[in-house]
């Protein structure tokens, strides 16, 4: 399948900004730099929307615009946590007011498929609409459904994306599991300390079955695994073999190391064994760590390919592998080629 467009609301203002002067964060989280939503959303609709819905809708609308597509044949979303702010608002009030005087709006919007549904509502899109909520492989499930729907011949152009947000209470709870950095540093990926930084974002893509004039890249393959028990090196090696792509043909490998010295070791080992001498980059210094961050990595890879085409530079990457392994439980792989 082909990627016709990619758009992200992330802790980076834009891809170009990220190339020249990326936003740098210290502390334990990276929050999104939000666009002017009035460009994308009718004021009558926007008043009720929580932040994650606005982020998702804005990224989706931008992706459709870039693909010059007015009506997708399907809308597929991945989110691990869903609409946390609405869930938190309803839950907190329910506890505080002992199940009285509750607002329906936050309950309605707490549903996990709210972002996909709001996009459909805005587009008046009656087509297929599905939402996957499987932790570190939520976005991968959405992409697999996309692939399957295209293969089934039930769609030609699909809007697919992932959303997850940080809110105060979820951050307070997740922090108690001790997974975020305690020391203040702005060098996430080379900190040499334990813990990572929380991230968030909304990334949307238009995938199509056929190569179109404006296709940016071909997504050659995508795979995700659940508690496989197999070594990451073997999984990656097999994935490349199945696609007939020897390591030397890869121009760039994007890795999911998140600056936590405990898990970075895993990525270092993989890199040493498989990718000696290859160009490797991390991405979580730009977006932080969250269960659907691989969607940000795919956005970044797509933008790099598009940028390379624009500047027509021979050293720009044309074949990119993404390897992320959220919490070392959900290895996922993406292989992209410029087209």
């Amino acid at each position, binding site marked *: 399948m082909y990627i016709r467009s990619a758009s992200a609301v992330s802790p980076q203002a834009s891809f170009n900004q990220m190339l020249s002067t990326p936003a740098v964060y210290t502390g334990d989280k990276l929050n999104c730099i939000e666009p002017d939503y009035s460009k994308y959303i009718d004021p009558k609709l926007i008043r009720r929307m929580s932040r994650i819905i606005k982020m998702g809708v804005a990224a989706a609308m931008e992706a459709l615009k870039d693909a010059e597509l007015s009506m997708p044949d399907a*809308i597929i979303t991945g989110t*691990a*946590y*869903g609409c946390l702010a609405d869930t938190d608002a*309803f*839950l*907190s009030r*329910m*506890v*505080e007011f*002992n*199940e*009285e005087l*509750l*607002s*329906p709006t936050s*309950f*309605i*919007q*707490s*549903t*996990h*498929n*709210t972002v*996909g*549904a*709001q996009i*459909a*509502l805005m*587009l*008046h*899109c*009656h*087509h*297929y*609409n*599905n*939402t*996957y*909520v*499987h*932790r570190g*492989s*939520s976005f991968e*499930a959405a992409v*697999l*459904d996309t692939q*399957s*729907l295209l*293969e*089934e011949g039930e769609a030609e152009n699909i809007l697919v994306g992932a959303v997850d947000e940080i809110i105060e*209470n979820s951050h*307070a*709870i997740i922090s*108690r*599991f001790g997974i975020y950095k305690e020391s203040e540093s702005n060098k996430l990926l080379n900190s040499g300390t334990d813990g990572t930084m929380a991230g968030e974002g909304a990334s949307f893509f238009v995938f199509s079955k056929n190569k179109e004039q404006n296709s940016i890249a071909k997504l050659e393959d995508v795979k995700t695994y*659940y*508690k*496989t*028990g197999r070594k990451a090196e073997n999984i990656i090696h097999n994935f490349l073999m199945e696609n007939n792509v020897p390591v030397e043909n890869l121009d760039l490998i994007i890795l999911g190391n998140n600056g936590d010295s405990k898990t970075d070791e895993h990525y270092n080992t993989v890199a040493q064994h498989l990718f000696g001498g290859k160009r490797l980059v991390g991405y979580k210094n730009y977006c932080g760590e969250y269960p659907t961050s691989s969607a940000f990595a795919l956005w970044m890879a797509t933008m790099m390919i598009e940028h390379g085409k624009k500047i027509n530079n021979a050293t720009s990457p044309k074949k990119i592998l993404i390897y992320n392994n959220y919490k070392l439980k959900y290895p996922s792989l993406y292989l992209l080629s410029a087209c």
Partner: protein
Amino acid sequence: MSQKVYIAGVGIISAIGNNVGENLASLKDGNAGMQQMERLQSVHKDKLPVAEVSLSNDELCSQLKLPNHISRSALLSTVAAKEAISNSGIDIHKWRTGFISATSVGGMDKTENFFTEFLADHQNGDLKNVVNHECGAVTEITADHLGIRDFVTTVSTACSSSANSIFLAARLIRQGFLDVVVAGGTDSLTKFTLNGFNTLMILDSQYCQPFDENRRGLNLGEGAGYLVLVSEKVAESMDQKPEIALSGWCNANDAHHQTASSPDGTGNYLAMKGALKKADLKPADIDYINLHGTGTNNNDIAEGTAIKNLFEGNYPPVSSTKSFTGHTLGASGAIEAVYSVLAIREGLIFPNLRFETQMKELPFAPVTELQHKELRNVMSNSFGFGGNCSSLIFSKVIG
């Protein structure tokens, strides 16, 4: 012609029974599961009847040998999924097997208790109670218990969630990605959903009356249902080849409003029509529709109107088994898929309990008594928030 996807086994737990046999007996005897709240601790206890699974968390935990901090959603899921596999008689480890579950509340039953302590002080509350909050965490508890690893995921599209997990399973089998999929969904009763639906003012303080002119709303229920879907190849390898297949499915969006259905049920109509097309069937081929039929004013008129427009005078028997189980939200699509399979297998049309008066807008009324009839094609409807509409068609395989 694409290969068929067979239903090799079913499993279920609901307010009307802890397994397939008990559910079938209640459906035949007309025993509904609603009553005064016993397990859920809510201030609305005396006002809002619910349909609770009779087993307590402790009983479920000891039956499954799982620790008691685990979400009730996961416990219900594990019971029903295990039954589905044993009912199929398949050794799932011999095949590429997936587990596709669905839930709308996930581990909320535990989180809402955690939150009471957490809000008082952010360092309070036992983390064991939030560690499985995510929908996907609930799925993984069951997947790990069953030992399924080849593919595991979770769908969440409110009240159509588990219908969507079932058609994804079918698609992945047809495309040769998996051989066997245990697919369905689970939801436990929570204060979160009870109060949520209460703010929408669509909960019935009496026992619900779906598709009745004087309907007042829905009763919430809980439970889990799973199907074991298998490829032609797996079906051939079984001692007795399954006789029922998932022949059609479709998901469409109403795109009308975040919660309410459009007056003429556009999304419902498109989902049913799309499922017929996928199954290569005409409306007249449908022998029974298991309705979404929540009992709310809005759902029943939208769904009824869509059926009126699609079936045009050729109305098949219809009934809502939510009159037995209550609305089990993310589990309802799968629970009703199990009932649809049982309807074909047993040659039964289940009654729509407590029906009194035909809706004035509709030219048809639901079935009120158990009917014995050979069924070839049964349609099951599931519609959710966000306009998410799904229809599944189960068919008897001939020859």
